């Protein structure tokens, strides 16, 4: 049993670890992109210009209502078709290519993450203390200084629990990319199952690995929350 998971030619330990590395790379690459989308959409949804506001609110409403796997296919196939027609238009003789599944994964996961993050950021923004922002203006800070030095650090504190949850959800959603042929943890497990014919054992191990990742994330997040809330009186 143990040699099944050993490292090297006979076992699947190394393959699974490589899959895990891909999963982590995907999640880590998605986070910043998702946060940027989240901020853009949040500010769009709070914009003073009505058309921009509609775009922001519309985006969150639609993205949050769609299955993640649908978004993934839309991005993967849609971007693939777009890419190929661009290539054809550029050079009619060229071969068609496949859109990079890693890139499709990052874009799709970040689009979903961003939609939910926008809501978290918007909520956090609305719970900022107006008095502290006025105090910044009163000492003569410019709006930009107020944003970077006062609003953003406090926004972080209010948004952290929500963003932490989204991180965990996104980590789990990375499993979807196995469906578009990216060699993540899930897909490497599938490969191992195909050879060993031990589906339960291997899928259970995959589940346990995800579980550990999530529990670890939760532990780190709760430390971060404690750090972010230092100096704030608990109610």
């Amino acid at each position, binding site marked *: 049993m143990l040699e099944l998971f050993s490292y090297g030619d006979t076992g699947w330990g190394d393959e699974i670890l490589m899959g895990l590395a891909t999963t982590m790379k995907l999640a880590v690459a998605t986070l910043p992109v998702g946060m940027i989308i989240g901020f853009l959409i949040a500010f769009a949804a709070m914009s003073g210009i009505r058309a921009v506001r509609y775009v922001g609110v519309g985006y969150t409403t639609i993205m949050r*209502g769609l*299955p993640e796997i*649908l978004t993934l296919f839309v991005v993967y*196939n849609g971007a693939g078709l777009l890419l190929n027609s661009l290539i054809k238009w550029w050079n009619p003789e060229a071969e068609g290519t496949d859109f990079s599944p890693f890139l499709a994964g990052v874009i799709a996961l970040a689009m979903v993450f961003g939609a939910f993050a926008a809501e978290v950021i918007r909520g956090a923004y609305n719970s900022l203390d107006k008095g502290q922002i006025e105090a910044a203006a009163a000492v003569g800070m410019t709006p930009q200084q107020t944003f970077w030095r006062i609003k953003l650090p406090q926004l972080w504190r209010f948004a952290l629990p929500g963003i932490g949850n989204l991180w965990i959800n996104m980590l789990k959603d990375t499993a979807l990319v196995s469906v578009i042929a990216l060699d993540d943890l899930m897909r490497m497990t599938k490969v191992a199952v195909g050879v060993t014919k031990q589906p339960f054992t291997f899928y259970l191990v995959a589940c346990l690995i995800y579980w550990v990742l999530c529990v670890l994330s939760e532990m780190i997040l709760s430390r971060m929350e404690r750090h972010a809330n230092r100096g704030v009186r608990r109610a």
Partner: protein
Amino acid sequence: MNPIEIMVSYWPRMLDGTLMTLKLTILGALIAGAISPWLALVRSHGSLIAQTPIRIYVSFVRGTPILAQLFLVFYGSGQFRPELMELGLWNFFRDPFNCAILVFVLNSTAYQTEIMRGGIQGVNLGEIEAAKAIGMTRMTILRRVIFPHAYRIAWPALSNEIILLMKASALASVVTVFDIMGRTRQIFSKTFDFSIYLWAALIYLAITSLFVFGWHRIERRLNRHILPRNNANAVS
């Protein structure tokens, strides 16, 4: 083909897929809805020994991708084929629909348990004591005091959970269940017409909107007693 034509030729399949999505979601939500209040009761009032397995179960479900759970049940059951055959359960696990439902129920039960736990713990202790004081039995207190309150508190969160479940049901397509997502992929692989994905998105959004609308109406009924009365004779 233009987007209209594709729907004209494939609407029976998409309708069929829609019904399958609804079936997966409603069945999953209802079964989970029947189990979770009891687990939630144990989780909020039970002994530590009774609570521990529920905690582990909830943590496991929340900490693993649904897709992995689905593969664990659907493909994983194959590893125990002889044993399952002996038990007469193999026919159940062979069917991807059954496996999908099983996974969705396990999943939704975990989330709904957490939501209901919040609801139950939100019930005012004074009201429970008042019920005891007039001599209600435990079962009556549950039925008449605790659950009505708990559901009122949990209602909006339950709505979110059901929408999440509907979105998760799209994963069933990966194990060859033909729900909306399954039909969409099938049609796409045949036609390479991208617009079918947009139709699928539209259907999902329509289901969500209708559901949210209906749920709100029920919520208003549940909260009748605390809504402001809108009859004119209240103010004169």
